[in-house]
């Protein structure tokens, strides 16, 4: 259930002054201690929502100067929304933390690698394409392939990349092209706009392909606007509201132009969907032109599983399922799908029509520790959080773990490889495409 409070006040980027009333909502009850994955590993108050809020409060009150130690405490957050979902007072923790990160960036500047990343992503398609293209050409020199998987391991010491880190292979060609692509369905009964998100576009291009193939076979035509960009989640998480706002405008424009206008938007990426549904409205709240467009687009945005189950209907999908997947399948709920969008049942409903055996893992909604770039900047804690997830996956006895977030797929694949496990982590839509005989 999205909290009413998270979007009521004025837009993001207002600084700490705008947070007073939100901070006051926190009664310091400590309930968030029971769900925070970072606190669970590190055990100190400054790593749980309550402590972080106390720090932001002290910063706002001038009791605490902006320091690197404060920044580090606020960086220790996956924005997994666990605390927010649990909090009895409805404190919009993620909003406060991103706002405080922005404040600290103003005061302390941003560390160079992050600054470069946000700039790159905010620059729009051209630069990003170039960067990924260069990356995909360089990767044979930097990494070696891990046999039998889509993973890579580094060859040389690299900044930010530790020895065990599993690096996903970049596709040689991104899924999107500069021009709008249109995939008409024979006997089309609906046309949707496909918001791909970066990882699906540059890495999991097969997933992108599956989205189109599945939709087309169900009689739904697909528009892929060419000038869509990164959803802005990394920049937003880092408190770079300028960059995130630019990306929001770019995407809103792309998703509402020409024949895309007014159509339903489908997203195969949990974070991308969450940005479109909840964050863009907040970012654009004070923007006279884009504010309304953001609110309107949010109403028309659906996670791919949500669209399939609620708008196409299982009854229309089941007849297309040609073969069932063998062996038990389990499902990991990404933070931004489960808590961010309240979507839990839809992926399961799809899985149940494609597999014979569904094996629920323990606590399928706990964060996998990926948290955008947290997995890179806080490798050690991230790995410890991941370890728990991997244990629940393996305990479930499933041979496939399905999920709705490309970031989670990368993180979980890394954890499984580390364990030498043969369990496959993949996107729900991929499994559906497989069962429908499309891939």
């Amino acid at each position, binding site marked *: 259930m999205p909290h009413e409070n998270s979007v009521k006040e004025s837009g993001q980027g207002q600084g700490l002054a705008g947070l007073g009333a939100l901070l006051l909502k926190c*009664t310091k009850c400590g309930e968030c201690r029971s769900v925070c994955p970072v606190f669970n590993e590190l*055990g100190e108050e400054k790593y749980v929502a309550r402590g972080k809020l106390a720090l932001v409060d002290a910063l706002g009150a001038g009791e605490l100067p902006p320091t690197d*130690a404060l920044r580090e405490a606020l960086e220790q957050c996956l924005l997994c929304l666990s605390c927010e979902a649990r909090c009895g007072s409805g404190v919009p923790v993620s909003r406060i933390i991103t706002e405080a990160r922005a404040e600290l960036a103003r005061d302390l500047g941003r560390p160079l690698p992050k600054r470069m990343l946000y700039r790159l992503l905010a620059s729009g398609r051209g630069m990003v394409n170039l960067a990924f293209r260069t990356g995909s050409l360089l990767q044979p020199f930097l990494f070696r392939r891990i046999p039998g998987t889509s993973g890579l391991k580094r060859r040389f010491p690299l900044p930010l990349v530790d020895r065990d880190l599993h690096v996903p292979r970049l596709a040689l060609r991104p899924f999107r092209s500069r021009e709008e692509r249109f995939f008409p369905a024979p006997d089309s009964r609906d046309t949707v706009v496909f918001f791909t998100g970066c990882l699906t576009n540059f890495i999991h291009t097969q997933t992108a392909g599956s989205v189109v193939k599945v939709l087309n076979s169900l009689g739904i035509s697909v528009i892929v606007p060419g000038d869509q960009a990164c959803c802005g989640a990394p920049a937003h998480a880092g408190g770079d509201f300028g960059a995130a706002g630019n990306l929001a405008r770019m995407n809103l424009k792309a998703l509402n132009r020409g024949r895309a206008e007014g159509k339903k938007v489908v997203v195969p990426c949990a974070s991308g969907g969450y940005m479109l549904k909840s964050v863009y409205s907040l970012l654009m709240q004070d923007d006279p032109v884009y504010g309304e467009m953001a609110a309107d687009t949010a109403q028309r945005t659906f996670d791919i599983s949500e669209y399939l189950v609620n708008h196409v209907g299982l009854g229309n999908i089941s007849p297309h399922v040609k073969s069932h997947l063998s062996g038990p399948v389990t499902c990991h709920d990404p933070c931004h799908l489960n808590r961010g969008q309240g979507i839990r049942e839809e992926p399961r409903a799809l899985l149940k029509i494609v597999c014979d055996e569904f094996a629920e893992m323990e606590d399928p909604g706990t964060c996998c520790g990926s948290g955008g770039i947290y997995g890179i900047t806080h490798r050690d804690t991230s790995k410890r959080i991941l370890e728990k997830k991997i244990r629940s996956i393996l305990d479930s006895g499933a041979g496939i773990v399905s999920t709705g977030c490309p970031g989670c797929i990368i993180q979980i694949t890394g954890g499984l490889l580390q364990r030498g496990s043969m369990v496959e982590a993949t996107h729900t839509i991929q499994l559906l495409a497989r069962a429908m005989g499309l891939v």
Partner: protein
Amino acid sequence: MNPEAIRLLSDLLGPSNLKTALEDRITYAFDASGTRAIPEAVLFPRTREDVPEIVKIAARFGIPITARGAGSGLTGGAVAPSSGMVLDMSCLDRIIRIDPGNLLAEVEPGVVTAELQAAVEREGLFYPPDPASGSFSTIGGNIAENAGGMRAVKYGVTRNYVMGLEVVLASGEVIHTGSKCLKDVVGYDLTTLFVGSEGTLGIITRAILRLLPLPEARRTLLALFPSMSKAAETVPRLFKSRVVPSTLEFMDRVCIEVVSKYLESGFPENAEAVLLIEVDGRRSAVNEEMGEVHRVCKEQGAMEIQTAASESERDVLWRSRRSIHNALRRLRPRWEEEDVSVPIASIPAMIETMEQIRRSHGLLLACFGHVGDGNLHISYVPKDETATDSPRLGRARHDILRAAVDLEGRIAAEHGIGSIKRKEIGWNLDQPTLHLMETVKHLLDPDGIFNPGKIFPGEEAGSHAS
């Protein structure tokens, strides 16, 4: 803080387990009471053996030391004075052993209550104390506050489940109270002295807890009543028909309203009170008792009775009771909260007085709690949302506590005295009794290093944040 003390503590614990940076201290400046004071240092003992050494250093330099569990306390108990140190006991979180043969568990104080409950339940055992904060509060905090909870009417409170304790005294000596034996009259009962001592007499480093067999079955019922008195009278009627429910919770009209709104699931408009009743035990007995509960509620004029046939239906019934706090907090973030108890037969009288207080002070006032054991929680704010009217709230608070005392009740039922009810402690304790307590405190902690500013009137404490 004395630099020598810091050096010694840092040598003892390792620098990463002693924090003096402002960023760390600010995050240990509060508990759930709204009381706040920034301590001088935060310490993280990693083993039980660290604790006596820490205490010796604190004693040598006369530095106040406040143990802290999860900081979920509602009376400021875990807030150290600004000249003091906080000892975060939640790092000592090992379940040392679960012993089904002896029906007991040995634990470190930082174990989270719900984690212990889950662990013993996996072995078919049962740890009954059940504070609403159980998913994050610690056993050490529960013992130090003698926490109650939903099941107190049948099973009692934390005190009834503590068989023995390991406690570090202010001298640094380690003592052991009680034993693994259910029957034990060897010397004074020191265990009970430390239960509910709010961290002022010693630091608990280990506990032997009593367990019960997990009841085979439980049944839950929710009944709506057209008047508070009808609901309240149901309680003695139940006892009369020889049913002791494991849970007997009630909520008043204001709670019903806010909860209905919060859950978007309506209770009937004219319902004035809700009772949530649970019975547990052997399956056959439970079914029979539930029938009896149903009958009594009906006889008392319940307008609607819902029963749960499965665990998920039970969750639905519990949802309304569990949501009260959240629902109130969505309405206004800050409520004053009182936790009082009265002899169980005086509940209707107490509720009636609350109605008068609500009217005469112009308050939004919600009453809910553990009607079966006489424990009421009263949450109140000025009716007018813009009023920041602390004198009025102060008068209301005075009247609420006074009303409890007048009915031979207590000003604190399960949340303790802490720093916030020190001034009123004399309303319940006569002078010689209070004096004896102070003498005990002085005897065990002559320099007053353990959690100063708590329980007794007149000492320094953290400031109450607005």
